């Protein structure tokens, strides 16, 4: 427990500093509306990043998640529009759409996972390839434009993003559940333990009766499912998908994982850290929008500086331990 707190402290400290900064820059920062906005927006990347934590912990990588999200969104919209005449606007249609999203996500993750574990190709290459494939497919299906959900369906589906329970938006609730499940899975289940073991030394894991390929395959499948889940919450937001949906989400998700203290080489995963990392990233955006610091051209530079600083804070703490 002690070393957990020590090393999570870094990103957490950065997060707290950002919150203080935000509040100081703009009094509306603390408003329920703004907090809801920031958290709900984090939810997509957040869920994906939780899945990515397992992939990276077990020594893998997935560059395709952003385009996979676009692809899933496209397929989901297409499927819902196609089923509309038969099912009519209503819960069955929405459930069917969700099923399609999860199914496509599962298949996409399975595809990545099989290429990596069966054909034994580097995860970087496989997912770089599928990244191009998914994105092209969406653009192609959308004919270069935007796939839009039927207007009536959309109105019905909207509350899945904008509605909530006890005043808490659905994306936030779902993200929280996924984060808790992820943390439990990483710390307290065999699966998480196996991921860490494989990432530390896959040979040792194999000699210890761990089904290395199967666990790795599962990490990609779970990630695919989580991308599907993220898409389910994403589609009601704008009701559309295009070639630019989910652009660079992969980089953001990976960055969140690494900022959170998971090792890029695998062997050590921290789901809480990832959640903190995601929040840091979306807070930076929020604060840059709320404050009139400098030219908006420099937003990227400030983002870069804060990311590096957040990690410096963390490393400052843990490098004392010598790692």
């Amino acid at each position, binding site marked *: 427990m002690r070393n957990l707190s020590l090393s999570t402290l870094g990103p957490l400290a950065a997060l707290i500093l950002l919150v203080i900064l935000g509040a100081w820059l703009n009094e509306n920062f603390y408003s329920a509306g703004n907090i809801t*906005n920031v958290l709900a927006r984090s939810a997509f990347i957040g869920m994906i990043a939780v899945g990515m934590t397992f992939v990276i912990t077990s020594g893998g990588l997935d560059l395709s998640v952003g385009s996979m999200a676009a692809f899933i969104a496209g397929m989901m919209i297409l499927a819902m529009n196609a089923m509309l005449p038969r099912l009519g606007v209503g819960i069955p249609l929405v459930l069917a759409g969700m099923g399609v999203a999860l199914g496509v996500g599962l298949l996409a993750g399975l595809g990545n996972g099989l290429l990596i574990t069966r054909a034994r190709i580097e995860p970087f290459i496989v997912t770089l390839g599928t990244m191009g494939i998914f994105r092209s497919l969406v653009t192609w299906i959308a004919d*270069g*434009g935007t796939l839009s959900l039927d207007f009536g369906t959309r109105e019905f589906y909207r509350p899945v993003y904008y509605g909530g329970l006890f005043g808490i938006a659905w994306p936030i609730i779902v993200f929280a559940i996924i984060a808790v499940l992820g943390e439990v899975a990483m710390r307290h289940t065999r699966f998480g333990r196996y991921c860490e073991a494989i990432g530390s030394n896959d040979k040792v894991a194999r000699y210890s009766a761990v089904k290395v390929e199967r666990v790795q395959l599962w990490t990609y499948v779970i990630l695919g499912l989580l991308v599907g889940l993220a898409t389910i919450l994403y589609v009601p*937001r*704008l009701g559309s998908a295009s070639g*630019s949906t989910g652009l660079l989400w992969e980089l953001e998700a990976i960055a969140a994982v690494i900022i959170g203290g998971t090792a890029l080489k695998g062997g050590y995963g921290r789901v809480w850290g990832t959640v903190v990392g995601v929040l840091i990233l979306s807070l930076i955006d929020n604060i840059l*929008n*709320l404050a009139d610091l400098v030219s*908006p051209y420099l937003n990227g530079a400030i983002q870069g500086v804060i990311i590096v600083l957040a990690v410096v804070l963390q490393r400052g703490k843990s490098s004392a331990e010598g790692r």
Partner: protein
Amino acid sequence: QETTYTIGVSIPSATHGFMGGLNWHAQQSIARLEKAYPNLKFVLATAGEPGKQVDDIEDMLATRNIDGLVVLPFESEPLTGPVKAVKDAGKWVTVVDRGLAVEGIEDLYVAGDNTAFGRVAGEYFKANLASGSKIVILRGIATTLDNERVEAFEKAIDGSGIEILDKQHGNWNRDEAFTVMQDYLSKYPKIDAVWAADDDMAIGVMEAIAQAGREKEMWIIGGAGMKEIVKRIMDKDPQLPVDVTYPPALISAAIEMTALRFVSDTPVYGRFIIGSTLITPENAARFYFPDSPF
């Protein structure tokens, strides 16, 4: 047997709504012209960044034996040299939308009017907002043409007493526009109007406003002429009183005129500026293309 001609078409890839529409129109025109004129062949290439577009043009020249080139430069400066090389090789050159850095290279220039695009929007704001009104702007991807539009807009509202609260980049992207607008709404208790500068961004902006429940408070002007937006103008949506055109179909005009150069004797040299006009509920039907993806 008449001689066949090959025309290269080089455009940016469909990374946002407007370009998506432009890609669609390009493909439609090519299909139509190839059917109409069997002796015309087209080569279409799309690029995600200026360097790739230069590659494409080089490849067309070296391997596809093009007789003419229709190009929508990703950026003016980097494409100037390579397009000039095409011209120097004795080929026909049509430049679309973004002019080259050096004048007089192209045979035909077909463009929208970025200055007018900003100005027309600005004039509408000036005419419909009282002095002291507060507006926010969403900018596109940081490029010269975005600068031109914003400058023209600011110049047009100059002296009206309208206050621009903020102008951040939404990068012509729905999601980013949504995020930026959400934060604007948190930051500013009073906003009277939004210049979203692009219809894709306008959609994201409207969602953010709807979420905050502030639909009654402000109206939005987008830009380009996306079918959903035009439809809402036709339906007299109070949130979307008008739109400013910047039709992606201008690529069709350019391709067709270039084709005419090869299949007929029609003189097509010159500059064709397709002005930006205001779409109002009255004239909206003329700008509505339900089959276009944009």
